[in-house]
């Protein structure tokens, strides 16, 4: 809610206070003056205390749709409770430096980046964004949890999210690396996580080639986009990653970046700008390009889809539908696949549910991430589909865990690109 809207909303209070009797007015005005002294932390801090307070005192209209609460089924995972604990840690009511209070620190990381809360919040809050400001103070106090430190160490060592540089595994995975000659039209920005799905990367490269696009991938020089650094609030380091990526993309001469990961797209597009480094080239998800190529008849979906891939349900990745607003494009592509029957789950498009594996949650509480994934898999299975199709490597990894743990029915999950590759 903007400040103007807030002022409008509380305007009715002004005459009430003005007309109150003298004693009462005096007390109210004193309380207004002393708000910070009474309820804000002393000294330096980064936490967004004002909005943590707003959230912790709110009547929690978002809770029914919060993925971590609905997965955990405990009040301690409720969005407003996370803000309450964030507030208590900030004002020192709960001492963050004490080992016995570790649970409370962990809670600050037990959010997937789904932001379902934001859809319903009357203040338009995303709780994970509020918690990130608490994470800043945790880092500044040297209290970063060990599982976060491990991730940072990996990134420092390999510049990817794995122990070894996952981009450099292209040869063993049979992925062609396309070096830039500095004169490309498109840069195909492959996500670290997507390197775990070589068949998707290969299919994307094949389709781009078939459509006659001049592009490069520069896998030898690639770094992770830095999303984990944003989530864990290592913003100085994130800046280095941003610069590295921007230099690499710029040096390719490309006028367009296409990526196979909504997380990378969101980071390149939105998060870099928030730390003051802007990528001047347009960034889109690769499906947006494919949709355009199909419309221009440069990519023709001609073969009938094989029977076992006929009944598909599309899972909207949170970041794709909510942050990038890419909702219709994958559906339009799916509808053009000959013989395909597209099914929709109960919560879809911008109301989609999380796969559980976004953000820091799966590091802080892997069991909960799995539970969230199972919940989503159940919703997807309810449609009667036998294939889940998505457009995000993290969703694919996450939902696969949910499928493994789901003993009801086996369902397969694939990337939309793989379906396209079957019909061109």
């Amino acid at each position, binding site marked *: *809610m903007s400040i103007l809207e*807030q002022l409008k*909303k*509380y*305007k*009715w*209070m002004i005459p*009430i*206070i003005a007309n*109150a009797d003298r*004693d*009462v007015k005096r*007390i*109210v005005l004193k*309380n*207004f003056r002393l*708000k910070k002294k*009474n*309820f804000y932390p002393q000294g330096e801090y980064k936490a967004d205390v004002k909005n943590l*307070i*707003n*959230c*912790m*005192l*709110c*009547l*929690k*209209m*978002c*809770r*029914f*749709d919060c993925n971590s609460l*609905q997965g955990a*089924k*405990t*009040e*301690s995972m*409720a969005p407003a*409770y996370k803000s*309450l*604990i964030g*507030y*208590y840690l900030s*004002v020192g*009511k*709960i*001492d963050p430096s*004490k080992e*016995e*209070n570790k*649970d*409370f620190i962990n*809670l600050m990381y037990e959010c997937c980046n789904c932001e379902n809360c934001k859809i*319903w919040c*009357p*203040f338009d809050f995303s709780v994970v964004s509020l918690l990130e400001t608490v994470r800043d103070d945790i880092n500044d106090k040297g209290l970063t949890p060990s599982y976060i430190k491990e991730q940072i160490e990996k990134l420092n060592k390999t510049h990817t999210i794995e122990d070894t540089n996952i981009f450099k595994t292209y040869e063993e995975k049979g992925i062609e690396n396309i070096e830039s000659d500095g004169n490309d039209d498109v840069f195909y920005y492959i996500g670290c996580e997507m390197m775990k799905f070589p068949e998707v990367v290969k299919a994307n490269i094949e389709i781009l080639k078939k459509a006659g696009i001049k592009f490069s991938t520069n896998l030898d020089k690639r770094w992770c986009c830095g999303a984990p650094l944003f989530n864990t609030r290592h913003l100085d380091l994130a800046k280095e990653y941003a610069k590295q990526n921007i230099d690499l993309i710029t040096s390719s001469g490309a006028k367009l970046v296409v990526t196979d990961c909504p997380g990378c797209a969101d980071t390149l597009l939105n998060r870099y700008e928030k730390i003051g480094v802007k990528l001047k080239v347009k960034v889109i998800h690769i499906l947006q390009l494919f949709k355009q190529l199909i419309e221009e008849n440069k990519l023709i979906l001609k073969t009938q889809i094989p029977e076992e891939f006929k009944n598909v349900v599309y899972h909207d990745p949170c970041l794709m539908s909510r942050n990038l607003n890419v909702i219709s494009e994958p559906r339009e592509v799916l509808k053009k696949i000959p013989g395909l029957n597209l099914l929709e789950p*109960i*919560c879809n498009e911008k109301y989609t549910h999380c796969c559980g594996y976004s953000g820091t949650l799966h590091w802080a509480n892997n069991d909960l991430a799995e539970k969230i994934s199972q919940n989503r898999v159940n919703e997807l299975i309810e449609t009667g589909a036998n294939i889940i199709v998505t457009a995000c490597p993290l969703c694919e990894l996450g939902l696969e865990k949910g499928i493994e743990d789901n003993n009801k029915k086996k369902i397969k999950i694939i990337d939309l690109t793989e379906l396209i590759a079957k019909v061109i």
Partner: protein
Amino acid sequence: MALEKFGLIFKDNRCEIKDKEKILSKLKVILGEKNVSTREIDLIAYSKDSTLITLNWRIQGQLAALPDLITWPENNDQISKILKLANEEKIPIIPYGEGSGVVGGAIPIYGGIIIDMKKFNKILEINDKDLTVTVQAGMNGMNLERYLNAKGYTCGHIPQSIYMSSVGGWIAHRAAGQFSTKYGKIEDIVLGLEIILPQGEIIKLKTIIRAATGPQFDKLFIGGEGTLGIVTKATLKIWPYPEKRELISYAFPTIEDSLEAIRNILRNQIYPAVIRIYDTSETSRHFPQIKEAKDKVMAVFVCEGNERLVNLEGIITREKCEDNKGANCGEEPVEHWFETRFRVTETSFGPPYKIVFDTIEVSVMWEHAAELYHLVLDSVKKVKGNLHITAHASHFYPNGVGFYFTFSGVATGGKSDFEFYQECWDAVIDACVKAGGSIAHHHGIGINRARWMEKEWGKALRSLIDIKNLLDPNNILNPGKTYFPPEKGGAK
């Protein structure tokens, strides 16, 4: 211990659990390791519900109360065993739904074991011919309604708290939805129940449409406030999703005119699903953009259902409003209500300024409706420290109306927030009783209203307490609520 730094509001008469480790290990046997907790992070999470004064305590670092153990059962057998254990050990049990209650019903004032019902969250059956849904009691309201809508139905029970309340909580507090004039309160919607009695016996009150099979036993549990049994399953009425909606609004010169218009609409057997009136203060607060409503009483109506019926309801609703000095304000105020009805931010505003804020809903027959409204307003304005008192009415019946008062203020003269809060409550409830009203329309009794139960029930309260004692001889199920105020209903 993080807990040591927190003050405790309800700290008297706490139950004594001599060997907590023993209880914990017994509960682990019943429920499995993952469904029991004594972690501080969980204890603090279950120290509260949504009672508004607790928000002031929360920012001040005070916990309303503190449970000893939290449990998340997954089946009836587990609940039954927890209850048996609690009876043996004389430990209070507090059923917990979604914690949206505003009368402290789920607050563990004497400590004890919380039974959180959230894992009872399955929709078991939709029966299209019977128009029923059978659902487990921990099911979140909105997740139920959203599922029903996707299948082409509605439950018609849409409390403002639908996003954060459970079926079991609705039943426990006899809740009312915004569309109650057409679909009824929850007591009109429940057709069948499964309940676990305080001593662990599981009973099923079968789904019936109407019967003459002795007293209506199920009604004892609808409004039972988690003191007579734990609801585990319910069969509720559903309806095909309405085919048409008509939005109507009128501004009236006085509260009396608006009440007269509505009384006449209902007298003609016309049931708009939603009827809401806002007194002049609330009209200027919620509808400042509607010029025709300046200094007036706004009334909004939603008629919904079969198209021909809705058309007729629309015609008669308009006619009765115009007969009673109503000025047509069109659809905009109703659209505005639809857009903002779940966007509550007010509760976050007051506590940082130590402003106490609350709402109280009461009901009254038509004869004394306007009188009750004026009496309450006059009475609260006299409380020292009061900043504002306003009202709307959002539940109407052919025979009467439910009013909903909102007040705010600050404690003066060295009083605590809680003392000031209690004074405001006294002012509202005393005026309500004086005007012949009933002290709660849909939020329930819980902790706060228990001290007026004798006034409300008279001698009949004795019989009610006899029933409670019969079903729960050890007084383990949600003690200190509903029948006696906390100081009198202590733990054993």
